[in-house]
């Protein structure tokens, strides 16, 4: 029960302040002494873990210059081996196994960074991030931990974003630049790659809402950027490509919302729809010969109407999910 529901219940029953306090206690809405105790323990555990990790990193960084090249590689590789050994000794879903898998996946990135720093491989930065994400996969799959999967999803999308910007996102300022089609293609790959990640997470059974939201948000962002680019001088083929990607985003978000009984995926898709439609309207209305004043008003009404329409539908669906639960 959330706060608004509790307020509605309290108002309907005309509770006094003492009755409100009693009801909150009975409904377990206000933490008691035991809750605060466990909360403090969780906080101390978080502070301890964070300080330990930060302390180790800073200790290594403080002595980094003294290690020499071989010492640095040895340090990271030993840490990697220790993390893998930990995961092997106490395999997931044991907490030590999940921590071991996460650390191993993280240290792959550190090794790549160190390698790139000392050896002129000629690789671009985006290649390192993408390689990190792929090589980390064998640790994400057995771990079945949301944290490891989230790390690799973020790393993968950083790589994708860097790759897309190799071909330049500065086309958003409105002028056609050499390699324009290449940029659209790289964004299309980014969109469909994230949809594939969503499908893979679902198939693997990792269905935490916050985890599924990550590739969904990435898809929404890439699609919005791609549609903005296409609105300022895209071919018909580009329009077909991105509209199909956008349609896929809307359909998958709706499917996820229904399966998870949460409006979060639909809300992400709705936000992308508002942004994309606004960009298209701005392009159409401000470029067409006519009144900029009227164009501004129409776009403001469009945004308000769009948000209100989708807000009403999403609210009704949210309440229907609550009633069905």
């Amino acid at each position: 029960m959330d706060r608004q529901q509790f307020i509605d219940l309290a108002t309907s029953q005309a509770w006094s302040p003492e009755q409100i306090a009693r009801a909150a206690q009975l409904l377990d809405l206000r933490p008691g002494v035991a809750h605060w105790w466990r909360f403090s323990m969780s906080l101390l555990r978080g502070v301890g873990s964070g300080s330990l990790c930060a302390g180790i990193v800073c200790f290594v960084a403080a002595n980094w210059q003294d290690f020499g090249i071989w010492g640095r590689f040895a340090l990271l590789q030993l840490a990697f081996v220790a993390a893998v050994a930990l995961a092997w000794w106490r395999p997931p879903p044991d907490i030590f196994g999940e921590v071991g898998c996460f650390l191993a996946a993280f240290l792959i990135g550190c090794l790549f960074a160190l390698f790139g720093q000392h050896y002129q491989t000629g690789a671009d930065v985006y290649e390192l991030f993408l390689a990190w994400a792929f090589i980390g996969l064998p640790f994400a799959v057995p771990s079945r931990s949301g944290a490891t999967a989230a790390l690799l999803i973020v790393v993968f999308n950083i790589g994708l974003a860097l790759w897309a910007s190799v071909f330049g996102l500065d086309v958003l300022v409105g002028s056609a630049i050499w390699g324009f089609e290449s940029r659209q293609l790289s964004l299309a790959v980014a969109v469909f790659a994230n949809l594939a990640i969503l499908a893979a997470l679902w198939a693997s059974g990792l269905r935490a809402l916050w985890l599924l939201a990550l590739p969904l948000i990435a898809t929404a962002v890439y699609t919005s950027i791609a549609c903005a680019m296409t609105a300022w001088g895209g071919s018909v083929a580009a329009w077909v490509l991105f509209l199909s990607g956008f349609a896929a985003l809307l359909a998958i978000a709706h499917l996820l919302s229904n399966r998870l009984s949460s409006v979060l995926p639909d809300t992400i898709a709705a936000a992308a729809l508002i942004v994309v439609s606004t960009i298209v309207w701005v392009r159409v209305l401000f470029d067409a010969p006519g009144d900029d004043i009227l164009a501004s008003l129409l776009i403001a009404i469009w945004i308000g109407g769009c948000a209100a329409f989708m807000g009403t539908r999403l609210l009704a669906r949210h309440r229907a999910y609550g009633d069905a639960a």
Partner: protein
Amino acid sequence: MIKLGDGDIIRLTSAGLLERDLPLNTASPWMLKLLLGGAAWLAAIFVIAFVALLFEPRTNMEAGALGAVLLAAGALLFASSRALFAEQIALAASLAGQGFLLFAIARGIDVDSPRAIAFVACAIQVAVFVLLPNHLSRLLSAFFAALAWAMAWRLGWLDWSGSTQSAFAGLVDWIYGVVPIVALAAGLVLSEARWLTTPLSRWFLPATTSLIAALCVAPIVLLPIERSAIFGGGGAGLAPWPLLSLLTALGALAAARYLGSAALMALAIVSAILSTIAFYYELTMPLLAKSLLMLGIAALAFAAHGYLRKREVA
């Protein structure tokens, strides 16, 4: 209708608290509020463009008059219709009106006084919070009023030429900027049972959420650009400001936990992490000493955790 579990119904009925029908479910999730608030901001940009292009205000009076008209139109729309479309347009109009008003007043005041502009912004937000009859509008205006208040004191610390006042004056300004927000938020949270079912909840409910959110954001905004030190001079010292910011974030975390708001808890945790990073960044110690300090704090935290666990088992 809101849903209650069988166990909850039994407990409430046994305590004599469930004597009438259950009410309709009017809850709206935070993600929807974020979507509608963000859309209203986007629409407000185009409303500002529309009004500016149509009327071409040239003087502060004209801009102020336009702002007042937009605010009044927004208030009228809020009062006259409950339809979501009307609320969105009203919110966009009121945000645009606030923008024009602030622009007009800021132009009228000496622009070398950013502190005065921040106070005026705070006053406008408080007026909007009191007068406009819409939950989302009150959420936004309470948040920005608290932020503007904190910024006004922060801007007093750093005068326009860039040189700082003394550390003591800075601490006093920090206290004036943050402590009133803390006191208000604490007062609202602790007295919640008294106002929850009264008409005051229309104001106090959004104010509670927004003030806790502001406590997460304002201390980060208040962090000094230049280093100030309580002990020693020339930047050598203990970095007190991020510690105060960390303390505030932990207080916000406790309040969010008490209210059971996961979104506010996440915001408070992010604020605490940023404050901790700022603390270590500003600490004038060698990196090796900092790393040993972190390891020491980790050891203390785990020891405290172990102690609490033993007490819990006992």
